[in-house]
């Protein structure tokens, strides 16, 4: 109880900021356990419908199956 009283010196701030921080920690935990980046790499393209190795690649092979 004493520890809580020592920790909580401004109840109003503790409530609104505590809620915001809890939400952030929940989001962090979800991301950590699902291997999800906050900001996904925009240069990585996820595609459905794999068609196999392109026999002749060429410089423009990137995203060839689009």
């Amino acid at each position, binding site marked *: 109880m004493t520890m809580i009283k020592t*920790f*909580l*010196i*401004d109840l109003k*701030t*503790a409530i609104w*900021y*505590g809620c*915001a*921080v809890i939400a*952030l*920690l929940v989001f*962090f*935990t979800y*991301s*950590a*356990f*699902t*291997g*999800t*980046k*906050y*900001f*996904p*790499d925009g*240069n*990585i*393209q*996820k*595609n*459905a*419908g*794999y068609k196999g*190795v*392109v*026999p*002749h*690649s*060429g*410089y*423009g*092979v*990137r*995203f060839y*199956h689009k």
Partner: protein
Amino acid sequence: MATVKLRTFPEPKEVFCPHCAKPVTLYDPEGSEYFVCSSCWSYVKYTDQKNVQTLQTLAPLKYEHILDPGTVGTLKGTEYKVLAYLEKKESGSDYEWREYMLYSYTKGYAFLAEYNGHWSFIAGTEHFSELKEAKMDGSAAVMNNVEYLEYNRYVPVITAMTGEFDWDAYEERVDTREFINPPWMLVREKNTKNVKIVDWYLGEYITPKEIADGFKITTEKFPEQFEIGANQPNPSKLQYQQTLRISLAAAALMLFIQILCMILRPSEVVMDQAVPLEAPPVAKNDTARKDSAAATNSLPIGTYEFQPQKTASFTINNGPAAVDIHLVDPVDNDWMEATVELVSEKYNQTWDLTQEIEYYHGYDDGDSWSEGSTNSTITVDDVPEGKYHINIYPYAGTQYPAEAHLTVTDNVTLWQNIFVTLAILALAPLAFWYFQRRFEVSRWMSSDFSPYNKSTSNDDD
């Protein structure tokens, strides 16, 4: 001396001004020895009804006051009666403030001081016994191991007053030094006639509402507040301290969660394979390997293309997971790029990305230099568990790279998330730190002893 240790306020007594003969009510007739006639502003020494002597005539009051002598109210759990109202100024300057002298029948005198609409409740050792521990420590004052920084020093002069006193208030001269640790203020008064007499007082910032509630009046007639009070609480300081505590606790919890995640979902190298960089099949009429740009007419000049490779299958466990694809090629003053395709054999999904490696070095004017590196890592996030392989389509600036090396690691730590979370957690404390500092800088702008202006002289007396 003010009459104390009573059970109630003393019975008021009416005396007559020796100058204008108008009646004056004394609210502590046994304790008071001086009074001011509010009709003719005579300053009178009063011993008893027979010994009444006019000392001088004072200036009339300049400002409207909110509490008349005789008004009763309760502040901080103690009942007070207003005995006097004083208007003061700093000797040698135009700074003016107002004080109300309060009388408690158990504790004696206390004061309400108002400057720029900011109020302090100030009292001596009868109210605050810890004042006996107050002492100077260099240019600061210390009480109960708490430091109070010097804010102001001056000689107060009474310009006008009304009410009654147990000492010759009008003639008293003291050197005053104020030390602050908001909402508290330590006041040190040294008598100029007898320098051995040093009195300490403790002041606490008090809001107009507290005073109005205590004396059951409205705040309408209270002077308007402007600037920042010397001991006014910093509204952002508590917010700064609270957000800092929560952020530090959250950072510790976040690291704990991350460590737990690393224990429950350990990182593992699931594929580690050399990728041979072989020239593509040569057309029949070609006699030597040539720049594939010439053959396809689509590659930039100086770009050599190698045969696409498919790696062995590997399994990603504990998905969805973040996966590191690490490509190494010992290029030397050269570059190498590869389109990498992570293929889910279960869902027929792909993640396409390009990895670039370039490493150049040399000597310039006797100094060695280098830029780039021989490896590249890209993290693919949110990859479901299952069986995968990688297709890689390499090309380079020369035909010499012989082999690249590809490594896939699952359940890697997402440092980006950690740093972004820490940065977000730092935002609120930093913002409130800035606000509270700006408040303090503004507060100390009114002082000659600002810790934010180190060039200020802090000479001791």
